[in-house]
């Protein structure tokens, strides 16, 4: 279940300082061994958190990418991209 891999790596950015450093230095290399689809990999490397959210990634966990400024994200950019995702009143993405 590769969405699991996206969620898991987000938490590892918090918990594993070596992984966090690797993601800051060379995210392509850091993500290379992980079980990700091509689209997940592309979205992560582009910091395309809106697409990842629509794929089912957890917003709370993805916030670590912004907090630790990996994948070209910071809190301002993350905020802008997530707020652009259209959702229903319980936060589920809508087409």
């Amino acid at each position: 279940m590769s969405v699991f891999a996206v969620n898991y790596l987000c938490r590892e950015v918090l918990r594993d300082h070596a992984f966090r450093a690797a993601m800051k230095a060379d995210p392509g290399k850091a993500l290379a061994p992980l079980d990700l689809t091509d689209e997940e990999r592309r979205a992560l490397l582009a910091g395309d958190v809106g697409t990842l959210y629509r794929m089912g990634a957890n917003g709370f966990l993805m916030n670590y990418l912004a907090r630790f400024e990996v994948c070209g994200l910071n809190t301002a950019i993350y905020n802008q991209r997530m707020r652009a995702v259209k959702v229903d009143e319980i936060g589920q993405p809508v087409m």
Partner: protein
Amino acid sequence: MAQIVAGFGVPHTPIFPHLVKRDGPDCETARLFRAQKEQLAATRPDLIVMFDTDHLNTFFLNDLPVFAIGIDKSFKAPNDEPRDVPSYTVPSLPALASHIRAVAIGAGYDVGMTQNFSVDHSITVPLHFLTPDMQIPVIPFFVSGHVPPLPKAQRCHDLGKAVAGAIESWPEPLRVVIMGSGSFSLEVGGPRMASDRSDGVPDPDWAMRVIASLEEQKIDRLIAEATQHQLLKAGNVGGELLNWIAMLGAIGDRKPTYIAPQMQNGHAYGVWRWN
């Protein structure tokens, strides 16, 4: 026998320790937590049982119980690096935690357990403000409140009652405080954040409704209205209200001593004391 002597509803915003360090003891958050700290000290507690929603730090998506209790001599806190929070070792009471679990399972609540565990800001931040010397043992009781499907509010309230029964059947004369940790309306890192923050309050009307129900002691109304849809509408961590509801089940039908809202964060500080 052990007795429950008070209930507390506590926020756990992870940036609060940093903000209080920055803004000093007269800032609003420092005053609100200090008032609760004084109330807690006045209850002379021997134990805190805290209902809490882990933020996928103690557990994760591959290992996610609906209910679970921590059973160990102590646990480390925090495991998610909230700013300006030291590393603590929090004492606990594993024999009583085991007893609570056994009684709850016997009463029909499927309570998992964790040992050799650590906890995140949602337990650590309240303790950091209310009992920073970490001398009072704490038993964490985890309620799944973020990842749907969520347990029903009535079930959580009834679980609280079962936990109270377990505590009151424990032969040691302990004074026990029950806490519920979390917010009423909050979105963290999700699409319903405010434009200038990492979080937001998607349903402030609901937060005010919760506070009114607490103040008016209309807990049946609160439970009836706290549907999964409403909790999720309140934000991606809106299910944390279930921790307060479990706490209310444990303490029984009591008039609150006070509820102090902090509406910009969608939460409140609550105290119920009678003993």
